[in-house]
C-alpha cells in the first residue's frame, strides 16, 4: 500500500486539475456567447423601434406597406400585426429560435386607435 501512495496522489491531482480547467474553460465560453447575444438583441430592438416610430409618423395602416419596410430592415423570420391582422414574414428562414417583439399603440389623425406589433426571430 505504502509503495503506491505517491502514484495514487498524482493521479488524483491530475483529475482535479482537468476538472478545474474544464470548469474555467466552460465559464469563459458562456460569458463570450452572452455578450454577443446581448449586442444582437440591442441592434434588433433598435431596428424594431425604428419601424414602429416611422409607422406612427407615416400613419401606416396596411400590412403590405409595413411588410415592405420590414424587408428593407431584416432578413430574419418575423411577424407584423396591425390591429389584430397578422402576417408572418420570411417564413422559409430557419435556425432562429428566440423572439424579440415590441408594440406601439397610438391615435391617428382620423381619431382611430392603431395597434402595431412587430416580432423578429433571431
Amino acid at each position: 500500500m505504502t509503495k503506491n501512495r505517491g502514484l495514487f496522489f498524482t493521479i488524483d491531482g491530475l483529475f482535479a486539475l482537468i476538472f478545474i480547467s474544464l470548469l474555467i474553460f466552460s465559464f469563459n465560453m458562456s460569458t463570450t456567447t452572452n455578450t454577443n447575444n446581448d449586442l444582437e438583441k440591442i441592434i434588433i430592438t433598435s431596428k424594431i423601434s425604428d419601424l414602429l416610430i416611422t409607422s406612427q409618423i407615416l400613419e401606416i395602416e396596411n400590412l403590405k406597406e409595413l411588410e415592405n419596410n420590414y424587408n428593407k430592415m431584416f432578413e430574419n423570420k418575423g411577424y407584423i400585426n396591425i390591429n389584430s391582422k397578422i402576417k408572418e414574414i420570411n417564413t422559409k428562414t430557419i435556425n432562429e429560435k428566440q423572439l424579440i417583439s415590441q408594440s406601439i399603440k397610438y391615435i391617428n389623425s382620423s381619431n382611430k386607435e392603431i395597434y402595431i406589433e412587430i416580432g423578429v426571430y433571431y
Partner: protein
Amino acid sequence: MILALKSSKAQVMILDILILLVICILLINIEFQEVNNYKTRIENDLNNLELLEKEIIVEQLITDCKYLATLNKTTNMCSKNKIEIKNITQITVDFQKICLLKIDSKEVIKNTKNKIINTIIKRAVVNNNNFKIIEVGFCD
C-alpha cells in the same frame, strides 16, 4: 531479495516522475489555452464595444437636432427618426470615423478614398414624409 525491492522502488519513482512530467505538460497546455481563450474573449468584447459605440453614434444622428433630427416647432423638441439633410459638416467634424452616409441610395457623405469601410449600420427614418433607409459607414 534486497536487490528486487530496490528495483521495484526505482520503478515506482520513475513512474511518479513520468506522471509528474505529464501533469506539468498538461498544466502548461491548459494555461496556454486559458490565456488564448482570454485574449480572444477580450478582443471579442472590444469589437462588441466598438460596434455598440457606432450604434450609439447613429442613434445620436437620428435623435439630436444638432445633427439630422428635425425640430418639432410646436413642441420645440427633436423628433426621433424624422430627419432632414442638414449639418453635414458638423457630423464630419464631430464623428471623424463616419466616412459614408447614405439616405436610400443618395450619398450625403462620401469620404472613402484610400479607406476601407469597416461597419455599415442601417436604420429606418422618415425623410420628406417618406420611409427611407439611412446607412452610416465607419472607416478607421
